[in-house]
């Protein structure tokens, strides 16, 4: 193989690598974003949950904060980073599995309705402040007053061992 052929092959490999890398979905996903805070209505009588307790809430296995206050689950719409984190870390499900999980959950008569879908941060905070018992997952850079940030496994967003990122 002469020098020109080597150059050509090297160029081709470089172009192929660049094309594949640019189209790889993981390219965007590997960049680390901010922590996702677990946020509740400020009247919710809770300040600290373990990750498994958060999972129980999100799976609909824990439906009441106390006997008078039902949990109101708020989940961001598909394509939001907060939703990706919640599905990956807490549910450990794909988007399809998540949808199927809630269809099955309602069909089993375990809950009457799926989580409420919110389309923006504005909407999320409006609901968090308006609905007693509401719980949502918010990018910790976009925090606003009037809500309560829960510790997860004893950690708050920004801690090195905070699990939701």
């Amino acid at each position, binding site marked *: 193989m002469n020098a020109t052929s080597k150059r050509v092959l090297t160029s081709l490999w470089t172009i192929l690598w660049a094309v594949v890398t640019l189209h790889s979905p993981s390219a965007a996903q590997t960049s680390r974003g901010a922590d996702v805070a677990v946020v509740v209505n400020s009247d919710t009588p809770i300040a600290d949950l373990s990750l498994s307790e958060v999972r129980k809430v999100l799976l609909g296995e824990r439906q009441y904060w106390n*006997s008078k206050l*039902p949990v109101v689950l708020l989940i961001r719409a598909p394509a939001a980073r907060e939703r990706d984190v919640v599905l990956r870390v807490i549910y450990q499900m794909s988007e399809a599995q998540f949808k199927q999980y809630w269809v099955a959950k309602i069909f089993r008569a375990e809950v009457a309705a799926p989580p409420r879908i919110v389309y923006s941060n504005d*909407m999320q905070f409006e609901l968090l402040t308006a609905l007693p018992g509401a719980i949502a997952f918010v990018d910790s850079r976009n925090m606003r007053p*009037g809500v309560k940030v829960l510790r997860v496994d004893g950690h708050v967003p920004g801690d090195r061992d905070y699990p939701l990122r």
Partner: protein
Amino acid sequence: MHRRLAVLVMMIFGANAAWAQSPPPLDQAEQIRILLERVQQLEKRVAELETKTPAAPVPAAEVSVNVPAAQKPETAEVAPAPGPMHQHEPTESQATTRQLEARYPSLQIRGFGDVNFSTTDQRGATSGFNLGQLDLHLASALSHKVTYFGELTFNAQPTGYTVEVERSIIRYDYNDFFKLSFGRYHTPIGYWNTAFHHGAWLQTTISRPDMVRIGGSFIPVHFVGLLAEGNIPSGGAGLSYNVGVGNGRGSIISRPGDAGDNNNNRAWVANLYSRPTKLYGLQMGVSVYRDKITLPVVSPAGNEFREWISAAHIVWTKENPEFLAEFANVNHKNILTNAITNNQAYYVQVGYRLPWLEKTLKPYYRFEHTHTPFSEQVFTNQDLVGSIVGLRYDITNYASFKSEYRNTKRLPTDPRVNGAFFQTDFTF
């Protein structure tokens, strides 16, 4: 040489551009639509903020939540403070908030259906298509503590359709530890009977295991009465329970006493299961069921029996792999003669969601076995040894194709039956 290289580069980029311009799949299109909506909302919000006067200096309490919570966790809870964020007029977002607030009653209807094709080498059997159950599920919150659930099926029969009320439940939730309901249920014995109900789309396989077959009698599939259920404070063990009292089996033992019990003895059922928090996806449980059966035909040996069902299950509900195993023993004691019989059934099912083709393929295998002794007086013979191997292909998030090969044998003297079964099932 350079010319060839240029052509190759153009081909690669051409293919690349064509790839980029190909129509997005459905989910991607939905995501784009949602993103566009978000952009519009944000644009509207920016426009609103730009028309307002410059914001007043932010109070210290608000600043404290804007710094990373790690630095000031004690200030994470902040009472609503009057500030620029809360002074705006009612917006579209607030209108949406009002729409999302709970309203009662809030009826939701979901349907399930399936269409099947089967062919076997069983003598006398015919191959062909058949319409599975059309299943309507209703759920309606009547208040934040009271909910109604219903399930109706439309079943194809040679002379038309029959309509069946499969479940009709009104439930009062006191809290997570105590929920009380009344109505017609799927009896909480084992796992499958309360996990999948009548929607074939929910289950991996085409059919239910024989021991929990709809219309079967090995376990009482339905139950009319009251049921208490809830979680048990148990830390990482994740214990939950169901305890119920009801009519038990009717005169036709595959059916519950919907219109009234056929004796003065109530059946009761208790189910205890664990979902350990450390092993997310695992569920293990035990169930017991007690009833008095009164058969409509009186024989010299009597027509009343005590029934005692004990069952256990262990399942791994994730799909990589999926593992389901259940066992049940049905004990019958003749009240007149004290003759006792024990019937056993179990199944083991494994499946695996393959990582390729967007995880749409799931091969599976199930082995099941049922044994009824010759001296059994309540059941007709239900012996079965069978294997199924199949493949589920999820066409969309809400519809699938399934294909199965089954090999079954009933009585020792019966020949083995081989069959191919196909199903498309869906929810809507």
